[in-house]
């Protein structure tokens, strides 16, 4: 039974605009890549552009241009539109063994598909949509947001989520605990590895003989990017040749620019903006230390993300400085595979960077340990295996809810 080659449908209904890279995109793409490597067939449905292996069968239904200006309506309309489309194409690609669906607000089309076509449904819950909208965005039609999510939770067979903290939040909001399976993010060792050739990049950026502190990711509140920016002046004081390399962009870009300007450290920082995913490893590979400054949420809930960057940093065999929050406390042990520091504390971040700078032996040790840990536990292949094992386990116990 476990040797059976599966046919999976990845059902993605979020709008990414012109961006083809990002956390969800990387997760989905990496899982698909690993499933294909194992010989499974993957079908992919989406309303947004995506970079995927050529042997994935793709179905693309663009979002309606007319409803583009009110985001909630855009999502509500796509719930109906995508469903109508799926009812036409799904019978043609059957049998499908399971649907994998990253949850997005206001859309429960995957639940209806599961019900009508009797296909097991695996959700990928990056958060509680209601909570995310309320705390990080603007919450309109709160009732509909909650209903859509509740319907999906009820109809799903498994809810894959990234961290213990996120599982707790999901349970608090009513997700059935017995369906939740923790499957953190990971990294691809073919892309993030210690032997990346980026010899020209340092010269191109004018960073020869500089001590480079790196960060990659979207500049959002929970990534704590402003605290890292505030640490620059403290580091410059001790290491004048330091340069902070911010690889990414996001809604906190303006604040980042402002802090850099206010602290007069423009010469010590480079902000690349969004880069194509293939470029990111090259930029990170020229860094001497990589930082993950995540913070707990303003409403008091714990940091619940599983930053992909943490695993990619591990794969690059670089010394890591991370804040002691959420999953970071679980995957990193202080002074063994990272330096853990207090959250929201720029001076503590600066102190840890200084320690890496002055103690190359410690830097090497934690980088090596992080790499070994990453390779043995945290690649996307491990995550895809969890997905497949869950499918077979579910099949054996025949508890698929139809």
């Amino acid at each position, binding site marked *: 039974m476990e040797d059976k080659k599966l046919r999976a449908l990845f059902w993605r209904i979020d709008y990414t*605009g*012109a*961006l083809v890279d990002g956390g969800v995109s990387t997760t989905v793409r990496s899982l698909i890549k690993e499933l294909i490597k194992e010989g499974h067939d993957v079908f992919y449905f989406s309303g947004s*552009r995506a970079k995927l292996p050529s042997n994935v069968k793709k179905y693309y239904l663009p979002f309606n241009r*007319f*409803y*583009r*200006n*009110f*985001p909630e*309506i*855009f999502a*509500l*309309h796509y*719930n*109906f539109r995508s469903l109508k489309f799926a009812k036409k194409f799904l019978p043609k690609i059957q049998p499908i063994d399971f649907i994998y669906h990253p949850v997005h607000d*206001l859309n*429960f089309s995957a*639940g*209806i598909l599961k*019900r009508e076509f009797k296909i097991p449904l695996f959700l990928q819950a990056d958060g509680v949509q209601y909570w995310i909208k309320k705390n990080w965005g603007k919450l309109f*039609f709160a*009732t*509909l947001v909650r*209903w*859509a999510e*509740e*319907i999906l939770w*009820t*109809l799903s067979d498994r809810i894959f989520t990234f961290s213990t903290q996120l599982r707790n939040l999901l349970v608090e909001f009513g997700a059935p605990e017995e369906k939740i399976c923790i499957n953190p993010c990971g990294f691809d060792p073919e892309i993030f590895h210690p032997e990346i050739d980026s010899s020209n990049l340092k010269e191109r950026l004018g960073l020869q003989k500089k001590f480079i502190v790196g960060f990659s990711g979207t500049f959002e509140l929970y990534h704590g990017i402003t605290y890292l920016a505030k640490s620059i002046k403290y580091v410059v004081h001790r290491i004048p040749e330091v340069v902070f390399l911010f690889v990414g*962009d996001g*809604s906190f*870009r*303006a604040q980042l*620019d402002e802090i850099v300007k206010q602290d007069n450290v423009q010469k010590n920082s480079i902000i690349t*903006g*969004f880069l194509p995913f293939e470029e990111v490893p090259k930029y990170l590979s020229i860094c001497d230390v990589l930082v993950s400054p995540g913070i707990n949420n303003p409403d008091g809930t714990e940091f619940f993300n599983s930053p992909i960057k943490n695993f990619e940093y591990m794969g690059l065999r670089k010394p890591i400085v991370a804040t002691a929050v959420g999953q970071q406390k679980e995957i990193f042990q202080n002074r063994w595979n990272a330096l853990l520091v207090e959250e929201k504390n720029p001076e503590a971040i600066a102190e840890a960077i200084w320690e890496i700078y002055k103690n190359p032996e410690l830097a090497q040790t934690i980088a090596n340990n992080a790499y070994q840990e990453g390779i043995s536990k945290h690649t996307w292949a491990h995550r895809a295996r969890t997905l497949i094992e869950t499918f077979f386990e579910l099949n054996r116990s025949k508890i698929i809810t139809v």
Partner: protein
Amino acid sequence: MKLLLLVNGNAKRIFEAQSMKQEDFEIIKINEKMLAKPRKMFNYICHNYSEIYFGCISIEFQRFIPFMLTYILLSKSKKGGIIDEEGAKVKFNAIKTILITIPLLVVEAIGSLLIVIYSFVYYFIWRKWKIKN
């Protein structure tokens, strides 16, 4: 002096694609959420710029274009448009904005209201009965 309000994307790539000179522009980085903050937006556009542009990665995928055109309409210069990294451009035209873009936005708002009402009924039925059967 011209103004580029960079919604997303890379200013350098946009100027290259549009064959424009970066030194002619003042660049302000904004995001889509800022478009919903008129006071902040008017602060940016109230100065005497000869042209105002909104920059993005791709116009094809860019949302909120009618709001951007309305801001240009309300600015002093009333010249400019929306430009992207792929070389595409929506040139601002005051008459077109008043007679087509804004009325279409109103129609969209009415259509949206209908979708919301339908969704409330549909979601309610699914939650109350369908998932239990």
